[in-house]
């Protein structure tokens, strides 16, 4: 097997206000959920590492969790500039938030760095009774999108999750990790490689599940 590798990626969360972006991040990073989470002002920053044993690699996510209000939109390019991955989050109980997530994907297609991994994430999956966004609608949207983007752009990941129950949250980040181009950034971040060993131990402890 090859030498253990360490890579660091910038990930940004986009989506309408109050769809649960911060809650997803907190579930992923701290495995907690808080009904009374303060609304994000500007943006928040957190990190989390996961390991991919099959390729002997540890991945660190530098997560930028942006504020969702429409008027912050002009700031978004600052956050997705240099980003390796973007989570466009909607709330499955709100059609409007799904439309907003589609807008974000459109903007990313136009302006984001080449090769950015995009995930379309439906949150609040625990609220099945209030569902407004059907899986079928999302699938048909994704088909159109794939045709539009073409093969070279890479697939758009789609998953649903519940930050409240924790269901599906880890899957999102694992799927993104799988889709990230490991060779290139790993080679770039030679510096980070040195701290690899300590890092990795820590990670395996944190995330026994992957």
């Amino acid at each position: 097997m090859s030498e253990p590798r360490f890579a660091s990626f910038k990930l940004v969360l986009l989506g309408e206000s109050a769809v649960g972006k911060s809650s997803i991040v907190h579930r992923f990073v701290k495995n907690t959920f808080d009904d009374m989470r303060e609304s994000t002002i500007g943006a928040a920053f957190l990190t989390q590492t996961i390991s991919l044993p099959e390729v002997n690699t540890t991945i660190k996510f530098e997560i930028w969790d942006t504020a969702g209000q429409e008027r912050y939109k002009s700031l978004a390019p600052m956050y997705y500039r240099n980003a390796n991955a973007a989570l466009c989050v909607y709330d499955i109980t709100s059609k409007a938030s799904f439309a907003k997530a589609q807008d974000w994907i459109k903007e990313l297609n136009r302006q984001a760095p080449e090769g950015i991994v995009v995930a379309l994430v439906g949150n609040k999956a625990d609220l099945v009774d209030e569902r407004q966004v059907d899986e079928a609608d999302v699938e048909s949207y994704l088909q159109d999108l794939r045709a539009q983007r073409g093969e070279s752009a890479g697939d758009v990941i789609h998953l649903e999750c519940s930050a409240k129950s924790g269901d599906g949250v880890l899957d999102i980040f694992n799927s993104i990790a799988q889709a990230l181009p490991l060779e290139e950034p790993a080679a770039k971040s030679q510096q980070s490689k040195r701290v690899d060993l300590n890092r990795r131990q820590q990670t395996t402890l944190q995330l026994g599940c992957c």
Partner: protein
Amino acid sequence: MPRSDLFPELAVKSQSKPIHALRSKDGYSSSQEINGLVSDNLHNSSDAQIAKLVNLKFNSNAFALIRQLSQDLSAKETELILLREEKSRRENELLRLCNEFGNLSYVEVDRRLNALKPEKNVHKVVSAMVLDAMAISDSQGSNERLPKDVQRPKPQSRNKRTALRRTQQPFHKEEKSASTQNRKSLAEATDIRSSVGLPVSPNLHDTQNPKEEPIWPRWLHWLNQSEESVDLPNKSTDIQNKSSIENSRNKSVVELESMGDSFSPILTSTIFDADKFGFVNDKPLQNLKCKTSSLQDMPSPVESPVSISKSATEINLTLANVENSESGKALTTLALSQSLDKLKLLNEQYLATSEMHLKQWDILMRQAQTSGSPKSDQDVSLGTFGLKAQNLKKQGSSLRKMFGHEDELSDDSKSFKFLQRLIYESGIPPKHRNYLWFELSGAKNRAIAGEYQRLLANSQGTSDPTLIESIDQIKLDLHRTLPSNIYFNNQKTNGPGPQFAALKNILMAFAAYEPNIGYCQGMNKLLGNVMLGVNESHSHGGSKVSEENLFWLYVSIVEDILPCYSELNFFHPKAMMLLREDSLILRQYLNKLMPQLGKHLESLGVELELVVISWWIGVFTEAVSSIDLWLKLLDGLLIADNPRIKFHAYTLAAFYFYQRALCGFKERDSIYGFINLLKTGNGPNIKSNEFMSIAASFEKQIHTIELKSPS
């Protein structure tokens, strides 16, 4: 010597009208109505009872009731004025007598009088009054007697007693029933004390031995729970005691404003384990306090505040030496006691400094309110200090006269600098905060009577899509604003806190007031923090601020105090891009003024703009960990000539204090992580006077920096 100098307290009281007094301008002629009070406990009545009252007494005309209430209010106002006038005449006469017969100098008398601290806590005053009433009825009705020193914990002046007797009249009956009830709770208290093994005076009413702890003051202490929460041994008495508090509260003078006002300072300490601002303590990370950059480790741009922190270090050194040395217990004890002495000394120094500042503030406020009394209509509209204390800079203004700079035309900012220095050194003390915020923000000039209600109504039934968008966003954010604070979120009931509604109303009214600005995430936390500052001020005897006035304060801060970008309001949607450009300028300042930190951040690839923008949009609520410090930052903004530069200076000062921690991180994400922790209240402790003086020195230096044009 002018009398106002000798009795500044009196002067303040008779000259400064409370904000709500403005409503009853016409009222002072109606003093003959004093006996026709209807309003004593009206705010406690149910809607049905009030409706009944309106029907029976006012022929179903609610206006008549309102007019009556207003008249009552002004009648009381008049009574107060008369009382104050009488008090001041009596004191003047006493002063003369002391001088003439007692051979006491005016200064000496003044000093002693000033040493008498006015009791601002209404519960204490009321319980003293209850005690008084009980003592009277006791001595009349039975042969039970209380020892003299127990009857009244503090000797009261004759004047106060006169005042007491007068105010007693309208609610004499209640007082009696309350006193019986309180006696009951006293009896219970005695039982509890014996049951939990606390010392109980064997015969309460015959106690003569002054050394034995009298139970009365202790009971009084329980009544005064609003100030410090007292461990009660038993839940049922908890309720009992609270109800007696309620009782005594009900007897305070009725004011129109207290009807429907949700302010409830008692909440903080009795129900939850909350800090003075109402934050429920759920911060397990509290111990994670990071190292602050202390001043002597760095090239200091200012010289002043070093002395105290220096001696603090010395003590640390001594203690460290003690731990390391093994040369016997005696030496250790000696060193320890020396350290303790030093600590005591430091503590004394600290107390003396704060005392001195407080005195200076008191002097400033007294004199300002005395000599700043309006001479013309124009003066009235401008207020005493005026927006950003402009009146201090004005030639010939009464405030300038009071500082004695009237003739020094060359130095026209001296009096302003006095205020500035006080704000930098100590910040506005809580008890003067509400008054000064209202003045310095310019809210006093902005307030238009009735406008707030109109705006509120507008915001409710609107069909304007921009306004609807703002209101929808507000609704999303309300329960996410300071959720760990009991004023906004009642964790026990999982429902809204007592000031949740005010937060909502003010944000909505603002959106209706300035639909182009509407609502921006960040405003909620700004307003929330302002409200906490106002609460604190109020609980320190600062003036009461109604929701309406809070609205105007908020409007003024947003529109006149925060920076503008190309004439666009700070929170305007289009200003966001300009804010971003400005954050690039900050990077240049940082590189110039803290090159080491600048290089370090650059080498790690930290995107400073992302951090800075969040700090700015949140008006620094995300940049500093303590509300105390944040309030001082707001104080400083209120007198800032150029708020944009002030924002830069504050940002640089924050980086200055975080410099050591930041330079210690070898990875980018640790830096972002550290900054992310600040907003959760887990940042380093920073002394506000140090912060302000560093910021002031950066502010000066900023002007000397030539900026490269952005590429």
